[in-house]
């Protein structure tokens, strides 16, 4: 990510609504052509950040640069951005064509140029047959495409998406997700995409920024976020079912907890093993081996099954090991019943350790 190539740069951004500090000292650098996903729970400030980038909210402090220009005070339409909203925000009284060309007409683009761009966008999004219809006569997925098309025709460098798929049903969401991914590969624009759907985030993003309370908790590639969450919040936020957590104390490579003494030899400490500190151990349900496979694992525990959730493709089981509850992901064919004994085990290489006080990864 070359500094010269940065597409969007946010410096020390603050945004307050009255006394409420929604964004605080936020820094973010997004490279040219990158697909950045902003992920976070509801109310963490994702939309607010997007609106700041788009120029729809006046920032309280800080700067926003897009394409190397300081656009902190520029009008939304002058920033070279296009935006797609959760509720589509199509102009209900205009046809699809009118929706697509409205921005261009405002920008006094010549007629034939408008026609050309609309035609191209319609082709890319496969909405040519719909051009004469009004939004009310479109299905959810079609509306979403038109909304994307509206950004597309503006030939902008940066696309902003605010939860563009969350009003759609699961199947359509999956389809459109793929389409957006392909669109990104085709166009090569920078895209900033807000969601609180993990799957979307994991599959679409080059990098994910996980936000909480107006701050970025971690900004990394999806696999890095999944495999090396920087802190407890990110660790718990990512992954479904949630990571299992066990409170204990860490001394060198010994983790003592209700589970007993566990050697975490093989764990890749961030800095180096600390001397002695209260710590939290985390392990994802899908990284726990059970039954026969458990025997192969460096760490082994005995447990009893408490609850079984067959999902068809997988089975989730909540087991109890020395009083600590663990969720374990098993094969969809697994036939367990509450009360069964189940040996479980895991590899220290797959665990996560966090400082209890700072909640940072160790």
């Amino acid at each position, binding site marked *: 990510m070359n500094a010269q190539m940065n597409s969007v740069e946010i410096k020390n951004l603050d945004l307050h609504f009255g006394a409420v500090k929604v964004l605080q000292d936020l820094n973010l650098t997004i490279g040219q052509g990158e697909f950045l996903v902003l992920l976070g729970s509801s109310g963490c400030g994702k939309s607010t950040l997007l609106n700041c980038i788009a120029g729809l909210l006046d920032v309280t402090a800080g700067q926003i640069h897009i394409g190397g220009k300081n656009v902190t005070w520029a*009008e*939304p339409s002058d920033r070279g951005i296009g*935006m797609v909203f*959760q509720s589509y925000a*199509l102009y209900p*009284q205009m046809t699809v064509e009118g929706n697509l060309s*409205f*921005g261009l007409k405002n920008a006094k683009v010549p007629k034939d140029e408008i026609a050309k761009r609309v035609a191209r966008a319609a082709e890319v999004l496969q909405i040519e047959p719909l051009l004469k219809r009004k939004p009310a006569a479109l299905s959810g997925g079609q509306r979403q495409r038109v909304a994307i098309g509206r950004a597309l025709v503006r030939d902008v460098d940066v696309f902003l998406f605010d939860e563009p798929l969350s009003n759609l049903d699961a199947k359509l969401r999956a389809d459109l997700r793929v389409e957006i991914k392909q669109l990104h590969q085709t166009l090569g624009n920078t895209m900033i995409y807000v969601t609180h759907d993990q799957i979307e985030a994991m599959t679409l993003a080059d990098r994910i920024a996980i936000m909480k309370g107006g701050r970025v908790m971690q900004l990394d590639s999806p696999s890095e976020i999944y495999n090396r969450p920087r802190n407890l919040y990110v660790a718990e936020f990512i992954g479904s079912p949630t990571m299992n957590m066990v409170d204990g104390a860490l001394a060198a490579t010994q983790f003592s907890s209700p589970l007993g003494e566990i050697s975490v030899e093989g764990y890749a400490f961030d800095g180096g093993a600390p001397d002695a500190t209260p710590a939290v151990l985390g392990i994802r349900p899908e990284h726990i081996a059970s039954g026969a496979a458990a025997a192969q694992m460096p760490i082994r525990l005995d447990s009893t099954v408490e609850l079984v959730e067959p999902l068809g493709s997988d089975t989730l089981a909540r087991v109890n090991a020395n009083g600590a509850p663990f969720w374990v992901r098993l094969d969809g064919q697994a036939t367990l019943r509450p009360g069964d004994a189940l040996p479980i085990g895991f590899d220290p290489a797959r665990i996560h350790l966090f400082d209890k006080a700072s909640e940072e990864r160790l």
Partner: protein
Amino acid sequence: MDAVSAHLDGPQGPKPRKRFSRNNIIIYGILGMVALYYLLPLYVMVVTSLKGMPEIRMGNIFAPPVEITFEPWVKAWSEACTGLNCDGLSRGFWNSVQITIPSVIVSIAIASVNGYALANWRFKGADVFFAILIFGAFIPYQVMLYPLVIMLRELGLYGSLWGLVIVHSIFGMPILTLLFRNYFTSLPEELFKAARVDGAGFWQIYFQIMLPMSLPIFVVAMILQVTGIWNDFLFGVIYTKPDLYPMTVQLNNIVNSVQGVKEYNVNMAATLLTGLVPLVIYFVSGKLFVRGIAAGAVKG
């Protein structure tokens, strides 16, 4: 399972509802009585306006006319005198039209733009102005008569049609602005944002995005204003001159200047004639009115 469905015992299908259940009798009974209370005055006005004077003196006001005569209507419309002018309400009618149309248009135009600016372009101090405006809704008109005379005089608009239009716009502004502001606030904010990203400015968004979506609230505003302005007496008479006096002034003159015996039938006919325009509007667009109210007034 199909075996079960072969025959069904006991209650099945929709629950039988008595047409004349106690509830229905109460509901329709009350509504009927209420309707009577609301219709009675109208009925009396219509009936009386169709009677001749002797019949009025004799019979009671609720009796239907024995002999229907349209003379009172004719008289009220074209013959009744005020002072020296004996052309009834007809002259005032056209004046009222002439006053109402520009006043309604201007006041709604101003208030809708205000409401839009307040809802979508909140600038510093907007709330203060709005609060003052709402406060203005409570000011008795009489209090403002004098200052307004002075202001219009200074503007050189006193006594002109446009002076009156301004006065109507000012006094319609508080409630209308409130309505429009609430309505525009209830529209999805994202539409507004999308339009801004699309480079549309204040007026473009107003005309091309907001306006086409605001039919219900415009209907409400129109109805309120037509009614209010058409029925206005005080401003019409104070801020204009006789050749512009609205219909209500003529009505007042006819009703209040009696010659010996009050001609109730003519008075009623005149009253009905004056109320006709707003009444027709209500009867025609009542449904839209309710929809618009639901959209604009209820969300706070």
